[in-house]
């Protein structure tokens, strides 16, 4: 049959030579490669003890930010929820009462704010949509859990510690200390 292209190569089948037949030589050649790798730099790391630096655009678990006075920035405007392609974000808004000015930055705030981490695809669109710099994607991975209920993250999981009342926890969350 005529070949369709001129790139066809015929494979030659030669009978094995004596050296090839005893296999020992090829095994030695293979072992030599393995042995030489002992002296090379290891590409893997010991994960929980050693961690790789993150890229500055890494998108991990969400954080709800506070301002410098420790007030919640989120005003429950719903832009993150409408931007979310996975429909993972839900919230309920409330009006700030007199005397709650130190807790919430604006007149309206999110009384409930939830992200369903089972639905979240970590695309970061919520972060881009937020007009109040309230929601950020951190450098933490999605945590493991034994049941599905643990993946519904409420405000108690998402809010960053208050820089006024818990400065150490806040610095730790910011990654300033280890």
């Amino acid at each position, binding site marked *: 049959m005529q070949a369709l292209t001129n790139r066809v190569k015929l494979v030659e089948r030669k009978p094995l030579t004596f050296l090839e037949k005893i296999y020992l030589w090829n095994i030695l050649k293979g072992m030599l490669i393995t042995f030489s790798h002992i002296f090379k730099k290891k590409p893997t790391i010991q994960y929980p003890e050693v961690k790789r630096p993150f890229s500055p655009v890494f998108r991990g678990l969400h954080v709800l930010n506070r301002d410098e006075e420790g007030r919640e920035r989120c005003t429950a405007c719903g832009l993150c929820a409408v931007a979310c392609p996975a429909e993972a974000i839900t919230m309920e*808004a409330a009006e700030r*009462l007199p005397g709650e000015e130190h807790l919430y930055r604006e007149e309206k705030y999110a009384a409930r704010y*939830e992200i369903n981490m089972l639905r979240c695809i970590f695309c970061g669109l919520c972060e881009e949509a937020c007009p109040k710099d309230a929601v950020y994607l951190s450098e933490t991975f999605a945590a493991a859990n034994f049941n599905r209920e643990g993946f519904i993250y409420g405000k108690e999981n998402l809010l960053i510690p208050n820089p006024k009342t818990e400065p150490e926890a806040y610095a730790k969350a910011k990654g300033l200390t280890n």
Partner: protein
Amino acid sequence: MSEQLFKVTIDNITIEVPAGTTILNAARKIGGDVTPPAMCYYSKLEGSGGKCRTCLVEVSKGSEKDPRPMPKLVASCRTTVMDGMEVKSATSPKVLDARAGVVEMLLINHPLDCPICDQAGECHLQDLSYEHGKNGTRYEFQRRTFHKVDLGDKIQLHMTRCILCYRCVFTADQLTETREHGVLDRGDHAQIATFIQKNLQNDFIGNVIDVCPVGALTDKTFRFKNRVWFTKPVDAHRNCSNPKCCGEVQLWMRGDEVFRVTARKDEWGEVKEASNGKTGWICNECRFDKKHTNDWVIEGPSHVNRHSVISQGHYEHLEKPQEFLPELMHRQPRLLMDIHSASEVNKPDIELSEIKGPAHSTDFNK
């Protein structure tokens, strides 16, 4: 006298309109991009218009008899057409520049608190600045603020957001028996207020919420309950005992809860005509007190312009996919998790529509 028809050309589209029609209304007959935006003019309110200057157009030919162009841009809501008039609206760079200037002026003292404002998503000022405005502001000073005026438990006034269009004043004048609010002071201090602290209690006063083009007057029974674009607009009606009320409304629902009741709006954002031919104003009872689905006869999802953010829910022409599992397996699909067992949001036992006024921390931390 037989009705005289004038030929007017707006952006090279010729239309015949009766004498006495304003340029804005002639442009609205053509529709589309030709129509100048309008913030203060309201076709259903007598005497409105001429205040905000967003509807400025260029008249490049005065009329057939006097073809000189008008020296300055004119407010199209207050200028009537002449025979043979030629108008440039969206095709004139002068007009577009003037509109951008007007938007900048309107936004000088506007707080831009759209993330908090309940009007966001159906706000005319938002649409206007998005379509005709510039990106930044050149204003460097403190924005004007006001002392809060309480208008009662139904209507919330945010004076900082007001653009002084006077629509609500005309509404109160023309719909209710006595007007209790108006514009006090002059110039920069001008504000919507009642002279002595007074609640607005008139029977039709709720309509000021619908005519307000910005979030200055909003519904307190809906305040902060939900964002407009997460609620589902449906047309509904009821037999209202008030003879002046048409009873035809739009319900803004979430699940089976009625969060808000408004009048139906037409394509210009104005209150629609009811089926009896009158303007579809609604009374306070329909608007504020009927928050149950069994108060209403529901007609179906309302039509929402696809350019509006409210259409993001795609409630119109919604086709639910057929569930095959019960048919094939002879059982309901097994739920891996009931969301209410883990979620704090949308709790079945907290009905936000039942709470009078905005929800507070006391409502959530029961």
